[in-house]
């Protein structure tokens, strides 16, 4: 690293050559120092982000375990783990639950509720709108451990607020309907993003279009279909993919049901934790990890493609994802 106070002539000289080769280098950084500036970040990303993902490929082919002989000297078992994962009944079950979780809570629940709130609040001002937005946002920003307990308390069998309200004392929601609880919980937790996104998107629909639809006597559904949807279609697709990605990787349900009872709410994120760290089958868990990363990759690539196509259609809005 160059000394902090290098003589001006030297700085100017270095800067001069650097500026000649690289336009815009106003501080005279030069390629060498630029590389040194980027290096710490790249090293951290390479070691703690990229390497684990690549390493999964190898780990998934070993019989690595948390304890015992296979912990110190894992053996190479080839594609064995991958075959086991894909043939595992628990894996299929978990995949099915994850599909319910992502479709039910994110694609349907958060999107419809978020859009509905944004639509109803679009031309409102004042207290009601502020209170609704504040509550929805609170559900989003509060720490996972806290909101998980709030829901445990809400759904408690003996003294829970929900049972008191519905007059159904003794109903064990988390035991009788664990998956439904986790899905409703995640709708509550994640609607804020869709609400804000569609709130912003609806601001781009010209008021004259809505006015025309109203004068033509269109019903709300007709207005939404013909005047609003064509305008926000790009936002719908990209936001669906984004919240699917987040929901797929959400670990918060673990804090509420821990996958139980009897694996009935064991979505993928909880399943990989249970097999790898609960049961100690790290090689097997690594194979699941790879499957999850690949699913993430597919969603992300479709997302980027959708974003690019939207950019082509409406170039000005492409940046405001």
């Amino acid at each position, binding site marked *: 690293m160059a000394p902090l106070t290098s003589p001006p002539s030297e700085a100017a000289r270095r800067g001069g050559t650097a500026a000649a080769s690289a336009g815009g280098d106003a501080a005279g950084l030069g390629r060498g120092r630029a590389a040194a*500036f980027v290096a*710490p970040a790249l090293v951290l990303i390479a070691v703690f982000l990229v390497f684990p993902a690549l390493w999964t490929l190898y780990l998934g082919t070993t019989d690595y375990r948390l304890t015992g002989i296979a912990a110190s000297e894992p053996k190479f078992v080839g594609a064995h783990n991958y075959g086991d994962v894909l043939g595992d009944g628990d894996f299929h079950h978990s995949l099915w639950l994850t599909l319910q979780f992502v479709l039910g809570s994110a694609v349907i629940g958060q999107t419809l*509720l978020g859009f509905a709130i944004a639509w109803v609040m679009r031309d409102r001002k004042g207290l009601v709108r502020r209170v609704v937005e504040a509550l929805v946002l609170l559900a989003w920003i509060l720490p996972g451990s806290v909101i998980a*307990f709030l829901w445990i308390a809400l759904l408690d069998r003996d003294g829970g607020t929900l049972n008191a309200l519905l007059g159904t004392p003794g109903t064990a929601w988390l035991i009788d309907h664990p998956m439904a609880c986790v899905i409703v919980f995640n709708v509550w937790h994640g609607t804020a993003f869709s609400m804000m996104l569609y709130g912003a998107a609806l601001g781009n629909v010209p008021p004259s279009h809505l006015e025309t639809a109203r004068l033509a006597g269109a019903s709300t559904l007709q207005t939404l279909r013909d005047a609003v949807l064509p305008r926000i279609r790009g936002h719908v697709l990209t936001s669906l993919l984004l919240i699917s990605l987040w929901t797929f990787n959400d670990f918060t349900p673990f804090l509420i049901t821990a996958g139980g009872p009897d694996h009935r709410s064991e979505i993928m994120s909880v399943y990989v934790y249970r097999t790898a760290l609960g049961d100690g089958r790290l090689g097997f868990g690594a194979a699941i990890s790879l499957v999850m990363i690949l699913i993430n990759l597919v969603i992300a690539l479709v997302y980027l493609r959708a974003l690019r196509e939207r950019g082509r259609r409406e170039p000005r809005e492409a940046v405001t994802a």
Partner: protein
Amino acid sequence: MNPVVREALRRIGLATFVSAVLGFFALPLLWLAFTPFDANPGIAASLPDFTLHNFKILMDNPYALESMRNSVLLAAGTALLVVVCAALAAYALSRVRVPGRDALLYVLLLLSSIITGTAAMVPIFLLAFNLHLIDSRLGVVLVLTGGLLPAAIFLLKDFTDATPTSYEEAARVFGASPLQILRHVVVPVIRPGLATVGVWTVAQVWGDFLMPFLLLRNPDKAPASVIMYTFYTEGGQPDLPLISTFSLLYSLPVVVMYLFVSRRYGFRFHGGIKR
């Protein structure tokens, strides 16, 4: 249908919907708002018989405040590392034309959104194990930093791109060295960006449960998110006075940070790269 009736029905429908939304979102939060101040805290939300005694129970718990301190350490450590590394990288990438830099940033951002803590928990755990970073706060900080850096660099590069280079050129004319320029000219100019990234990092780490849960063993090192979980899963009856006050205290910084950032910069948390 008679337009008056139709309008009335529409209004009733709207009011019902708004009330239902309010009820749905407020119901779970009521417990958090009331119970910490209730002399007889129960599992159901009810109007409190006001007392501050529960906070004394919180102060007397050996793990409660210690875990807040751990959360602060993890959040501050990660924020510091992320801001410094991201600022250096973003500045260099913004000002010096490196071939393929846009593609690089794009790929890094893509990787950080697909290699999440959840999906990669097995290799991350084994990596920490082999580097002897299990039960080390540094390990948690490093893993979280690796995941947050791409988005932080992206945000800061945007910020730096938008600032004119004329100040830096002027400083250079007066003979300032590149590092002096960076410290005395660039940092003050992009300070709002640095603050935004710092607050964003703190918010991400403050609420994170999985990484400390995975990588820390000793309860003395556990942050608030993990200690909170042990409060209601270990032992038979949950200790409601403790859980309620702890939840409130642990949640407050998040709300304050959110208000600060949205007031100051009109910027809303991009739930983005959550791990």
